[in-house]
């Protein structure tokens, strides 16, 4: 294989299904998706691996399916999505005085302020997952890149996401157990948010919410960058579970009722309107009040959005999210979910749509995270490579000859 073509896999280990995409990156610029595979999930509850063997078997089946659809093309490194209720985040910021006499910001100032902002110790048993940088503030002004600008005080803030060490290890070991290397661990919310929001929306402020089966991931973008992320262990399976309990149904029946009649907001006012459970009038078939189904699902959907809103806390205000709320994930396919979000957040809300360059076969909300993994992962690795190249240019070699 030519070194100019790099084959990368993207894997999302979800609570209901495992999705795998294989991307071929040519010369570090154009990405082609050459294979996709999926498998029903086993051994994963609310985004956490609870049965390593079952989860491994399911993931490995999905990987083989993807490799088969890519014509036997194998990949050795993986961008892995990370979600789960154990993920927590905090904001930390630091500031430094610009060192040069002429007040010009150097790479050393930037390194110092970054180190100070990301150096906060984590609680015991926790591991760093992401350090999401917010824009630099130079004397209070927002600057995307502070190097070579003049100012007195340089300030930067980071949203640091950390997770439980054991749960992270379980997730990673599922992949390593198939002799694959995890090259990037990416938050599901960042991955799906990249796909369903536009750069303009991220600049003006937008909340992207990915309602999966077991978890709901959200990210709040401001000034073009993710400033806050989170994951709550509630998702579409909870709607199913509520229907099971509320209407005394089996899980399969409840899932069917949810997908056929579930809604984000109540549309049926007539409490006597019934829908048949199976529709075949056989033994066990019975009428169910449609209003009740809608009531149960809409209450849970509203609760999910309330929890997200609460999690955003003081960071969130309607002024900061001018572009509103974008919803994706499997549960976003229920009618009226966007209306429920608009009601809770007091903002315009819409269902996420993919950019035009995404293939028709992949334009399903269930693929938002795994698609985002490829695009976000490649962008972040390219940016890291560019940053380290720039750092090398201004590193010890240049300092050595600075005097000359």
């Amino acid at each position, binding site marked *: 294989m030519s070194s100019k073509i790099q084959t990368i896999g993207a894997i999302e280990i979800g609570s209901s299904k495992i999705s795998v995409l294989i991307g071929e990156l040519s010369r570090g610029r154009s990405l082609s998706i050459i294979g996709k595979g999926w498998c029903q999930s086993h051994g994963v509850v609310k985004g956490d691996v609870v049965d390593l063997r079952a989860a491994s078997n399911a993931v490995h089946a999905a990987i083989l399916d993807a490799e088969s659809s890519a014509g036997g093309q194998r990949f050795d490194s993986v961008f892995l999505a990370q979600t789960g209720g154990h993920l927590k985040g905090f904001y930390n910021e630091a500031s430094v005085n610009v060192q040069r006499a002429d007040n010009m910001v150097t790479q050393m100032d930037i390194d110092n302020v970054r*180190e100070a902002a990301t150096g906060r110790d*984590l609680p015991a048993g926790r*591991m*760093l997952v992401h350090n999401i940088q917010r824009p630099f503030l130079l004397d209070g002004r927002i600057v995307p890149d502070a190097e070579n600008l003049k100012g007195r005080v340089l300030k930067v803030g980071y949203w640091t996401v950390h997770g439980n*060490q054991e749960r992270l*290890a379980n997730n*990673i*070991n599922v992949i*390593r157990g198939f*002799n694959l290397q995890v090259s990037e661990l990416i938050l599901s919310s960042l991955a799906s948010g990249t796909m369903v929001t536009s750069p303009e929306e991220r600049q003006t402020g937008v909340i992207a919410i990915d309602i999966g089966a077991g978890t709901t991931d959200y990210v709040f973008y401001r000034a073009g960058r993710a400033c806050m992320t989170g994951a709550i262990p509630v998702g579409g399976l909870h709607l199913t579970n509520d229907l099971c309990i509320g209407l005394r149904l089996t899980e399969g029946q409840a899932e069917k009722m949810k997908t056929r009649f579930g809604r984000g907001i109540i549309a049926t006012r007539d409490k006597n309107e019934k829908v048949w459970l199976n529709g075949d009038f056989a033994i066990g078939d019975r009428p169910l009040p449609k209003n009740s189904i809608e009531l149960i699902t809409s209450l849970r959907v509203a609760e999910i959005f309330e929890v997200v809103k609460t999690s955003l806390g003081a960071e969130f205000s309607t002024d900061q999210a001018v572009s509103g709320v974008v919803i994706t994930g499997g549960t976003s396919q229920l009618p009226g979910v966007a209306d429920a979000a608009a009601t809770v957040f007091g903002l315009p809300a819409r269902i996420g749509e993919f950019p035009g360059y995404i293939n028709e076969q992949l334009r399903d909300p269930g693929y938002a995270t795994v698609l985002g993994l490829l695009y976000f992962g490649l962008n972040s690795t390219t940016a890291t490579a560019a940053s380290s190249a720039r750092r090398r240019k201004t590193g010890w070699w240049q300092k050595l000859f600075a005097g000359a």
Partner: protein
Amino acid sequence: MKAPPGKPIRQRPASWEDLVRDPLPRRVMAPAGRKRRAFSTLRTVGGIAILCAATWAGFELYRMWEANPARIKAPAQSGPLKTITFQTNGVLDRAWAGRTLAIPPGTGMMALDLFSLRDRLLASGQVRAAVLAREFPDTLSVVVEERDPVARIVASEPGGAPETFLVDRAGIVYPGINYPRSLVTTLPYLAGVRLRRVENGAGFAPVEGMETVANLIGTARAYIPALFSRWHSISLARLAPDGVLVVRSADVETLVFGTRDDFFKQVAQLDFIVDESRAQSGIGPIKMIDLSIGRTVSGTQIPVTYGAAPPVPGQARRAPAPARAREG
């Protein structure tokens, strides 16, 4: 690592990347993962082995080249040619091939210049195409495709006696080798042709119009074999100006065939006229039949010229009339 003065070493927070660097416990590796790792290792080891072998071979070759360059060619040249296998679709034989190729005994296989040997075979003219191949360790395979002669022609080398050459469908003139006499004598002679020598003096330029002549001969041989066997010559003298071929034969002194009309129809008409003439009594031998003209709306009026009829006692001589050949 020594910290700069006044700057304490800060402990980096534990990251997920540390998990990737940790050794993987044996029991975590799935059977499919083990297979994949084994395959990957095998592929890597195989790649390295091939690379090493290629490097070693290159190094050995380089060393050999440095020490004695002739040794690199030596193994290939060491086997001398022992056998020539010969295949043809015609009459040439292995002895002719041996004489023509004239390879000195003991010549090495790699010393054979296949292109030059092929040119020697093609120079005879009788060979249309030749394929030569080395079959190691000691055999040269020769496969030739010969030309099919359709006529013969008499020509003389400068200062030499007249000789008979053969001409194929493409007009190539060549001295026929190994053809049985019974085949050569059935070929009609070509007349009215001015042979030109090629610039380097070896052989003659191709005869123009041989494609048409070959079509006529082929049709006549197939449909009127008895009449054709008594054809003496075919003249191409009027081919270019009038578009006709003139045949001299034992049955009819002069036969004129038009090249603009179908030869099949013309030989059928000839057969009919000859049969009709033979059935009639009191007329002389046919001197000329011009099959190139005579088509009319109601049929075909072919001019036939008869010779003087043998005198019959007590009967007036009948004037010869044009023969009428019905179409269809």
